[in-house]
């Protein structure tokens, strides 16, 4: 089977499954669609049936990078300052505090486990930081599904919307910084410092966004808009990956610049989100196909990740709400609605998996996909339960 045919069949299968089966199932039984593509990818991938063999998976790398960029742009476009300014500061404080607590708890425990299992402090530190970053990410799909089905617009729903966005931003930013810290010097140029690499990561998105506006001008002709967006996202994600930085982070910057510097953000958001779904399918499917069992002691870090993350999300969100005086409004267990993991977790795991000299990439990726498979399906139900209690 050729690579493109494999890609096509996989996307077609996922696409039909999503439309014909899971959309209906999701709305009727509040089951979030997404993790099934990941499972499908594992089943079709080199580890099991080998229908998507290693050669095919490798040859589709540019599409995956593009998918990372596209999803990053969609996430970046959620940060429209005009709208964010209308949200009370307390909502952000709670979201950031919960993110920090989750990162510290999961990262710290994984560091200790890594230190105990693999001895080296450096390795354990990186393992803890990456898993901590992934733990912060939570899927907004369950929240959106509940908001859609029940047309719910309550304070807790608004908090959940903001929290999932901030979780994504914090997770992506931490991971981008980790890549900059661990960036290998290139033989062709002067070694750049971590700060310089962080600046380069941001600059790729900012320059891409600026270039987009210069390119587009004042004319919002639909073809030109689409071509400029495709070109911009492809170039930003390609440049970040080429420099061994995080395409997700640069694309988030790109999305932020676009949405905050245009007169018609709704047109841009509509154009990008319209094509988001196929990229999401591709990311999940080929994420699954990229999975490999780890040769090291993987069970403890993976189990610890799932358990510690659950505890950290519920406990951390409770603490954050209490510290900000929002516990009566949000309830004790509102963090349960943040347990679902999806596109950001798999995107970070996948980027880490393909970094050169990364420590235990298969353990990290296994933890990410295990968490997605265990939590995403039921994230809408958890959200509904939280909303009903509050």
């Amino acid at each position, binding site marked *: 089977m*050729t690579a*493109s*045919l494999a*890609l*096509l069949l996989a*996307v*077609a299968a996922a*696409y039909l499954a999503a*439309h*014909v089966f899971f959309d209906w199932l999701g709305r009727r039984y509040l089951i979030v669609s997404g993790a099934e593509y990941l499972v499908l990818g594992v089943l079709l991938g080199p580890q099991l049936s080998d229908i998507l063999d290693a050669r095919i998976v490798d*040859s589709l*790398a*540019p*599409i*995956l*990078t*593009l998918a990372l960029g596209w999803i990053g742009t969609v996430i970046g476009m959620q940060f429209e300052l005009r709208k964010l300014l209308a949200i009370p500061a307390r909502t952000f404080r709670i979201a950031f505090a919960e993110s920090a607590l989750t990162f510290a708890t999961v990262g710290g425990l994984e560091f200790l486990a890594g230190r105990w299992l693999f001895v080296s402090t450096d390795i354990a530190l990186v393992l803890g930081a990456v898993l901590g970053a992934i733990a912060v990410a939570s899927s907004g799909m369950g929240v959106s599904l509940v908001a859609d089905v029940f047309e719910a617009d309550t304070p807790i729903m608004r908090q959940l919307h903001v929290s999932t966005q901030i979780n994504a931003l914090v997770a992506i930013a931490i991971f981008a910084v980790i890549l900059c810290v661990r960036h290998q010097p*290139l033989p*062709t*140029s002067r070694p750049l410092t971590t700060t310089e690499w962080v600046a*380069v990561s941001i600059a790729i998105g900012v*320059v891409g966004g600026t*270039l987009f506006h*210069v*390119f587009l*001008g004042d004319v919002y*002709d*639909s*073809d*030109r808009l*689409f*071509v*400029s967006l*495709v*070109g*911009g*996202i*492809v*170039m*930003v*994600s*390609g*440049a970040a*990956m*080429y*420099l*061994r930085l995080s395409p997700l982070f640069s694309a988030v910057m790109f999305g932020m610049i676009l949405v905050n510097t245009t007169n018609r953000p709704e047109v841009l958001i509509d154009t990008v989100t*319209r*094509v988001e*779904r*196929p990229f999401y399918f591709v990311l999940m499917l080929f994420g699954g196909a990229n999975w490999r069992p780890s040769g090291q002691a993987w069970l403890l870090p993976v189990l610890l990740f799932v358990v510690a993350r659950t505890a950290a999300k519920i406990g951390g969100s409770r603490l954050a709400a209490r510290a900000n005086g929002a516990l009566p409004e949000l309830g004790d267990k509102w963090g349960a609605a943040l347990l679902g993991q999806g596109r950001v977790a798999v995107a970070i795991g996948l980027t880490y998996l*393909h970094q*050169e000299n990364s420590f235990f990439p298969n353990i990290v990726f296994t933890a990410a996909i295990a968490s997605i498979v265990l939590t995403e399906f039921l994230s809408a139900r958890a959200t509904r339960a939280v909303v009903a209690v509050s």
Partner: protein
Amino acid sequence: MRRLFVLALLLGAMRVIQPLGAGGYGAQALLAFGFLILAAYAAGELAVAIRIPKLVGYLIAGVVFGPSALGTVGTRAIADLSPVSSLAIALIAFIAGVELQWQEVRERGLGLLRVLGTELGISIVTITAFLLLLREHISFLQHGTIVEALAFSIVFAAMAAVHSPAVAIAMLSETRARGPVAKTTLGLVLISDVVIVLLLTLTLAIARALVPPAGANAPALTLGAVAWEVIGAVLIGGILGALVTLYLRFIRRELFLFAIMVAFFGSEIAHLVHVEPLLTLMTTGFVVENVSAPDHSAALRSALERAAAPVFVVFFALAGAGIALPQLARLWPLVLPLALVRAGAIWAGVRLSLGWSGLPRDEVPVLRRHVWTGLLPQAGVAIGLAAVVAQTYPSRGGDMQVLFLALIAVNQAVGPILFRRALDQSGEIPRTEERAAAAETSAIARP
């Protein structure tokens, strides 16, 4: 001015990024892809400002940023981006099929075959004669007997007679031209695409009989294989068309993604079972257009055009990047007269045949003046045919390929300009306001 600024910024960004990176994980191809989309699109808009077609701008951007000139997009990246070209060709064929209505095929099909038959006949005879006349100056004809020279001249002439559906469709999509010249040109290039494959197979078979190829890597071409290539394409295209029609009837969602998927799928299946990919997708589009409800096929057409926009930009930019300037510079004394002879033959063939073609009498005068220009451009398919010949005759075929690619470069650059002018003069390009209204309507119709 802004476009030039964009190009300078893009180039500057690439110059900064390239030395810092190390590629891997397909990043280099992706970077080149993004750069090409933006740079070629900006060049296309610059071209419009100086009244030449956008796609010539894309081609020029490809030449300038390609390996022959600035080298911003390298040979490796061009090879990595070849799936984009395949997708573009598939989309082109699909769009072409969706444009064909059964009523029109029935009314004009025979007339178009007559015009094409005459035009191709005259082109092949004239180009063969020209090559034989100058055989002392042509590397692949210099040595060997007159029979060998005749065989290779015919093969070259059959390749040189090919037209470009890609350019015709891209031009009609860019200008939104509607009228007899647009319709007739489109019909001719689409039919010629199928006819040329048969013709080249036939001429190669003659050449193989006269000059058996040395080596074991010559692909075997049999009549059965050729028949399957055509009949199989119609069969598979028909089945795919029926499936697409069912999808449009019962699901009709995410048409943008669906259009790309069908084009990809049709192209891949065609390659797998060795049938003509263009004919497969054309048949698919034709079935959809003529079997499904008018609003369904209109929605699909709109989605297809949208999907094709960035793909066309990169397709033509890659075609430009593939032009080898040093070879063109070396061969121009031969290539320019050859291009003129080909153009003259096409002009004569079209003029001679239109009188007895059976096409509507009132259209004939305008068709006589303008249709030939739409048959000048050459692009993707032609390059593929040259590769087949080079594979059959590695030594002489290689020389033939070099000359042919130089000829394509000339026709690629000049053909679209003349075709755009012809569409303009025949009054088939709507005025700016009408085009804006049409674009708006299509945007509203978009799913």
